[in-house]
């Protein structure tokens, strides 16, 4: 199952609408092993095509370096289909090379780029095998909720906040 916060979910849809009729693409990075999509990174579709997407090779290197420096991995890799359903194509399956990622597809077909609901679906793609999974959109992630002091429980000792780079 993919658990994703609403702000990121909506930002992905917004990106897909903005780039329609070309395919939009990007990642949501998250701490290694957390399975939590935390940092949305919209990418440029170097192919600038309605039927193909590819990260620019220089952008790709910078992205992975940045994730390395932050101890992150690509938790979600997303792209849009602009005239077909939000289901991995043969090309998507053949080129999927991140076995740990949730592959998200959104479809902006049939006027969805302007208004109305946008299909937002998630898959695992491993060794050519596609498995669709449930998507749960949350307002915020769970331990962000628990990390707040609750009534009746002593407040956690103050923690040195990690500098946000």
């Amino acid at each position, binding site marked *: 199952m993919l658990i994703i916060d609403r702000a990121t979910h909506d930002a992905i849809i917004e990106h897909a609408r903005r780039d329609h009729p070309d*395919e939009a*693409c990007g*990642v949501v990075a998250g701490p290694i092993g957390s399975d939590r999509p935390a940092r949305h990174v919209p*990418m440029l579709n170097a*192919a600038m*095509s*309605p*039927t*193909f*997407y*590819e*990260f620019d*090779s*220089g952008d*790709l*290197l910078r992205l*992975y370096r940045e994730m390395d420096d932050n101890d992150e*991995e*690509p938790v979600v*890799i997303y*792209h849009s*289909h*602009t*005239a*077909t359903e939000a289901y*991995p*194509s*043969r*090309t*998507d399956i053949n*080129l*999927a*090379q*991140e*076995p*740990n990622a949730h592959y998200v597809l959104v479809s902006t077909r049939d006027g969805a780029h302007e208004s109305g609901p946008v299909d937002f679906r998630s898959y695992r793609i491993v060794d050519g095998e596609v498995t669709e999974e449930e998507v749960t959109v949350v307002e915020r992630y769970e331990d962000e909720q628990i990390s707040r002091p609750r009534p009746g429980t002593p407040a956690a000792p103050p923690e040195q906040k990690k500098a946000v780079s």
Partner: protein
Amino acid sequence: MAIEVRIPTILRPYTGGERAVESSGSTVGEVVEQLEADHTGIKERLLEDSADGWAVRRFVNVYVNDEDIRFTGGLDTAVSDGDTIVILPAVAGGADLAAQGPAPLP
């Protein structure tokens, strides 16, 4: 000569899970041969045999010190002690309508 080679997740089964390995050679092509000697099977995931000889697969990116080797001479790109090679699978795909063929006749 020691060259650091950074291995992407999908190829780590070949390196016993290691994210980076040391290898040697004076060109990227030689480094790949050494990688193959140490981690059998990895070469075929990186290169394909074409009419013009071995070349990096279309959807694999190889960088030497941050330069994509497609722009620096491909497998002939020179490397030396202390260089870092990064291997990254392309992130690509798409609806690829052409591959679905023409619509059925009415």
